C-alpha cells in the first residue's frame, strides 16, 4: 500500500525490492555463466593444466589447444627434433616442446566449412520458401488454411530419430547419404516450418492497405509483394534467417546419425577431438569457443525477437 503515497504508478516496485530482485537474478546469471567461462579459460590452458587438481583458475595462457585443434601431430625423438630447422611458427614451437612435430592439418577446417555451407544453404532456401508461403498464408484465402499451417508446424515436432530412420534409407537409395546437399534439404525442411510461422506473423503486421493502395495505382500483385511488402518485412526476414541459421549451425541429432565424413558438421565432430591418451580438453574447448562465438553474437542481435522465435511467432512482445 506504500505505493499509493508516491506520485508515479502504484505498480512500480519499491527501490528495495528492485535491488533484491536484481541481486538474485545477477547471482543466477553468474552461476549460469561459469560453465561457459570455464570452457573459454580451458581453451587457453596446456593439456596438463586443463586436468590439474585443484582446477586452475590462474595459469600461464597457451595457444596449445588451438594448435592441437588445427593440426595432426606425430611423436619424434628429441634428437630428431633438435636436428630440425628453427620453428617457423608459435605452434611449431609449442608442439616441439612436447616432443612432437606437426604432421599436417586436422579435419577441423573441412568440418567448419561443411557447417558454414550447410547452415547458409539451408537458411537461404528455408527463408526463400518460407517468405513466399507466409505471404500467401497471410493474404490469400487458401482452402484448409489452418490444417495446412498445423501440418507445416507438426513436421517440426517429429522426433528426429523417427525421421532419421526413413531418411537414412531414402538417402541411401538416391545417393544423398553423407552429402552436403542431403543435409541442406533436410535442414531446409525442418526450418521451413519455423520460417512460415514466424514470417506469417511479421507479414500479418504489415497493413494490407499498403499493397491495396499500390495495386489501385496499377501495381500487379507480384509487384506489390516485391516492392511494398518485402522491404517492409526486412527486419522479420532477417530475424527469421538468424533463427534458421542458429538451428542448422547447432543441429546434432541428424548430423550424428546421417553424416560420417564427407558432410560431417562441427557438432558431431567436436566430442571426438582426441589427443594422445584420451580427450584433448584444451583442443575441444578451443573448438567449442570458436563454434560458440557466432551464436553469442547472434543472440545479442536477436534479443528483441527471441521470444517470437521460440514460440513460432505466437507471442510477440
Amino acid at each position, binding site marked *: 500500500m506504500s505505493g499509493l503515497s508516491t506520485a508515479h504508478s502504484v505498480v512500480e516496485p519499491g527501490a528495495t525490492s528492485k535491488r533484491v530482485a536484481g541481486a538474485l537474478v545477477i547471482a543466477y546469471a553468474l552461476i549460469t555463466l561459469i560453465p561457459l567461462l*570455464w570452457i573459454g579459460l580451458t581453451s587457453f590452458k596446456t593439456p596438463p593444466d586443463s586436468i590439474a587438481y585443484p582446477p586452475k583458475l590462474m595459469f600461464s595462457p597457451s595457444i596449445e589447444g588451438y594448435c592441437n585443434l588445427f593440426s595432426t601431430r606425430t611423436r619424434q625423438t628429441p634428437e630428431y627434433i633438435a636436428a630440425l630447422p628453427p620453428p617457423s611458427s608459435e605452434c611449431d614451437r609449442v608442439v616441439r616442446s612436447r616432443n612432437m612435430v606437426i604432421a599436417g592439418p586436422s579435419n577441423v577446417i573441412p568440418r567448419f566449412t561443411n557447417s558454414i555451407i550447410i547452415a547458409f544453404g539451408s537458411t537461404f532456401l528455408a527463408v526463400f520458401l518460407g517468405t*513466399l508461403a507466409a505471404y500467401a498464408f497471410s493474404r490469400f484465402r487458401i482452402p484448409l488454411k489452418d490444417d495446412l499451417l498445423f501440418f507445416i508446424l507438426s513436421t517440426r515436432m517429429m522426433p528426429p530419430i523417427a525421421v532419421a530412420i526413413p531418411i537414412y534409407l531414402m538417402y541411401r537409395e538416391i545417393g544423398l547419404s553423407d552429402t552436403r546437399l542431403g543435409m541442406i534439404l533436410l535442414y531446409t525442411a525442418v526450418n521451413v516450418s519455423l520460417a512460415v510461422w514466424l514470417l506469417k506473423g511479421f507479414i500479418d503486421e504489415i497493413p494490407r492497405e499498403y499493397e491495396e493502395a499500390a495495386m489501385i495505382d496499377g501495381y500487379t500483385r507480384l509487384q506489390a509483394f516485391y516492392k511494398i511488402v518485402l522491404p517492409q518485412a526486412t527486419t522479420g526476414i532477417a530475424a527469421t534467417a538468424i533463427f534458421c541459421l542458429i538451428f542448422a549451425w547447432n543441429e546434432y541429432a541428424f548430423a550424428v546419425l546421417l553424416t560420417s565424413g564427407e558432410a560431417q558438421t562441427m557438432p558431431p565432430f567436436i566430442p571426438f577431438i582426441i589427443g594422445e591418451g584420451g580427450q584433448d580438453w584444451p583442443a575441444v574447448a578451443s573448438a567449442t569457443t570458436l563454434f560458440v562465438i557466432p551464436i553469442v553474437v547472434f543472440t545479442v542481435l536477436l534479443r528483441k525477437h527471441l521470444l517470437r522465435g521460440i514460440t513460432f511467432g505466437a507471442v510477440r512482445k
Partner: protein
Amino acid sequence: MSEQPTTMSMADKIITATPTPVAARIRGLSDKGIAWIFVGPTIVLLLAINIFPLIWTIYLSFTNYAANRSGPVKGVGIRNYERILNDADIWTAMQATAHFVIWTIAIETVLGFALAYLIDKKFKGHGFWTTILLLPMMLSPAVVGNFWKFLYEPQIGLFNYAISFLTGMDRTSFQMLGEVSLAPWSIVIVDVWMWTPYVMLICLAGLRSIPDYIYEAAEVDRASPWRQFVSITLPMSMPFIMLAVLFRGIENFKMFDLINLLTSGGPGSTTEVASITLKRAAFESWRTGYSSAFAIILFVTVFGLANIYVKALNKVKQR
C-alpha cells in the same frame, strides 16, 4: 534494432512510385494462382522430406526389414507393435523418459517463473542480464553435452570440485555420469541449466501481458501483495506458463542429443530414454522394422501433444 520506415514515408513512396505501363496493362497472375505457386514448393518439400518417409516408416513397421542386410522383406502384421508393448525394456525406457520429463519441467517451471517474476521488477540493467541469462538455450546441445561431461569428470571436473568444496565430500567418491543413482539427475541438471531461460522468457511475456490497471484496481481495493499474486499474477500468466510447459514437454519427451552425449543411455540403461532406445534399435541392432513401429508410436504421442500445443498457441495469440 533498426526501426521500420514510418507510415508517412511509406505512403509517400506509394504515391510517388509510378508503375510501368506494361505492368499496368498485364494484371499478372490471379491471386489464386500466386497463392498456389507460393505455397506449393514448401508443401512439396515437406511431402518429400517428411511425409513420404513417414509413410515408408509405417510400411516398414509391418515388416521384419533390417537395413544392414539384403534379402526378402517379410510382412509380419502387427507383431512389431505387439512386441513393443510387451517389451520390458521399452517400459523401462518410458519410465526413464517420464522421470526426465517430469523433473526437468517441474524445476524449469518454478525456476523460470521465479526468474521472470524478479526480472519483471525492472531493476537497473535487467535488459542486459536477461540477454546473459538466455545464452545457454542458444547453444548447440552438442557442445553443451560435451562440456558438461568435462565438468562432471570425477577427477578433474569443476562440478565435483565445487561439490566437494561446498560439502567437504571427497570429490572422487561420486561419479555424476557413472552411477546408477546419480546419472538420471545429472541429465536433469544439464537440461535445467540449458532450458530454464526458455521457460523464463515465455513467463516474462506472460507477466508483461498483464495490464497495470488491474493491479491499480487491486491496490484501490486494498488487496494484499500475496492476494494480488494469487488472484491476478498467477492466473493471468497461466496460459503462457502452460505454453512453456507443453513445449518443453514435447521437446524433452523426444530428447536425444544431450543424453546421447552425456551418458548414451548408461550406466546400463538407467538414462536410456525413448529416443536412445529407438536409436539403439535402429542404428545399432539394425532392427529396422521393429524400430519403425516404435518410431510410429512415439510420433503419434508427440503428434497428440502437438495438437494440444497448437490449441494453446492460439489461446495465447487471441489475447
